[in-house]
């Protein structure tokens, strides 16, 4: 009898294998409701739309990785390298050297009165001189009309410094790392340079905002829960011109792959995104009009 157990066991395994294979084969390839784990380094909506790149997702739980960063030629945004990874209910992004508005400030010419004031700063007491309110020229970026008082400078000498020797870009970020695993995630941001000045990130606590308004609203570590139980963490969300341009840097989404039973959405106590209900996908974006000629039937 003992002699027969092993072949029986092998046959049983073969039969089980066949049954299992049938089950796997009949599982739908790509469930419309379940979202896979995914990650992307750069994405943007608005006047300069950018398809998420590089973008990777894992529908089957196996780890996928990509470093194929493909940004369209554009005057606003550039990045050096990025690596994105998505796997079984985990995802991560490493994004290095992001620059916003490279060379944008080189075009700003000082208005003549300001030039005079800057040329004749007194030897003492200059730090107390107020900043004059003068309009800034259009920087060619999706920003509202700005004036000199909107710039992050404390006094007249600082303003002169900023405009006479403009920084090479509006915003520079040397590294952003984002990760999620299950329903937790975190963000690590390197140094941020705004208009040539290194600024302290007040905190990487969820939803912290870096004050750089009205130029931009920068939110750190935005976290949200999807209706299907997925969890998304975005390193930096840069909002220019009050929604005219929204840039998302380093976003990771964690979700269990489709083969597993769908997890019940856990109630999230933080960060309710306006417009999302449990049970519907994220709100569709408001379109930014595209300048183009197309004859329509009057």
């Amino acid at each position, binding site marked *: 009898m003992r002699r027969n157990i092993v072949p029986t066991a092998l046959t049983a395994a073969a039969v089980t294998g066949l049954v299992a294979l049938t089950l796997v084969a009949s599982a739908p390839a790509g469930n419309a409701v379940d979202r896979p784990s995914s990650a992307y380094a750069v994405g943007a909506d608005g006047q300069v739309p950018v398809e998420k790149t590089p973008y990777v997702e894992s529908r089957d739980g196996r780890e996928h990785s990509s470093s194929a960063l493909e940004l369209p030629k554009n005057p606003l945004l550039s990045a050096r390298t990025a690596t994105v990874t998505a796997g079984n209910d985990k995802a991560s992004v490493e994004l290095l050297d992001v620059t916003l508005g490279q060379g944008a400030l080189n075009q700003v010419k000082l208005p003549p009165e300001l030039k005079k004031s800057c040329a004749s700063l007194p030897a003492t007491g200059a730090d107390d001189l107020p900043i004059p309110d003068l309009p800034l020229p259009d920087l060619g970026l999706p920003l509202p009309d700005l004036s000199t008082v909107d710039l992050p400078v404390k006094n007249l000498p600082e303003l002169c410094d900023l405009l006479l020797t403009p920084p090479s870009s509006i915003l520079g970020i040397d590294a952003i790392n984002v990760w999620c695993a299950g329903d937790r995630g975190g963000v690590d941001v390197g140094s941020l340079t705004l208009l040539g000045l290194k600024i302290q990130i007040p905190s990487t606590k969820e939803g912290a905002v870096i004050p750089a308004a009205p130029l931009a609203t920068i939110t750190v570590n935005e976290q949200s829960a999807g209706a299907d139980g997925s969890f998304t963490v975005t390193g930096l969300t840069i909002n220019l011109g009050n929604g005219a341009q929204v840039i998302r840097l380093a976003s990771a989404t964690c979700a269990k792959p489709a083969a597993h039973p769908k997890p019940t959405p856990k109630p999230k106590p933080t960060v309710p995104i306006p417009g999302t209900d449990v049970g*519907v996908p994220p709100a569709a974006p408001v379109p930014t*009009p595209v*300048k183009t000629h*197309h004859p329509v039937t009057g």
Partner: protein
Amino acid sequence: MGRAAQNQRGGSSVPALAVLALLGAAGVFAVLDDGKPDVDLTTLAGASTFATISTAPLDSQPFAGTDGLVVHPRVETAVYSAPDAEPFAKVGPTQFGATWLPVVERVDGWVRVLLPSKPNRSTGWLADEDLEHASSSYSIRVHTGSRTLELFERGKRLGKWKAGVGAQKTPTPPGRTFLLGSIIDPKRSASPVVLPLGAHSPTLDTFGGGPGTVAIHGWPRPDVFGAAVSAGCVRVPQTALDRLQRVPLGTLVLIDSK
């Protein structure tokens, strides 16, 4: 134990092992193959407002609403006449701005969308991979009988405005369509923003050098609002256009003759 026992075990287990090996190999292939044959997209026509694709299956419920699901293809995607059937067209990530198409039907792994190509009421199926999903809580209704336009958000009416609609010979086509784009046309002075729809004039094959796309837009003179004088477009007052500009692409526009 002895050679006899070993042989017996070896003898009767070989077929089972062979089955396992075959299953193993097949299992690998099952995981690698996503079940869809590789499609040569270069042979397929692109579905856009400029195209006429006569093989597209037509909308079977042109006056029904949807649940607001809209999809955006991240890459050029084949459009099928039915799930797992033959592809007859393709659709890319941009139309006027990003492509967002309303979903009118769903089965496991597939969505049926309204297409922006001619003829009116064209639909097609997309494989639900590489599609970004979003939800529009808005819907727009145009009534060519009472010549009004209504905007709804989550079922609540945000506004109702008198609208100019197509003249008798050049009517605004009835049936459901969607917001295809939001453009600022530098060659038009009549309206700052134009919202092309997924529908075309049923009587004019071309108009002004274009394919006869029907749109919602403004007009400099208010006497057209409430009149049936246009070549198909829906003309609305600026207050309506201000609201409509903020409605996401892909939002359903249901045109009826009420």
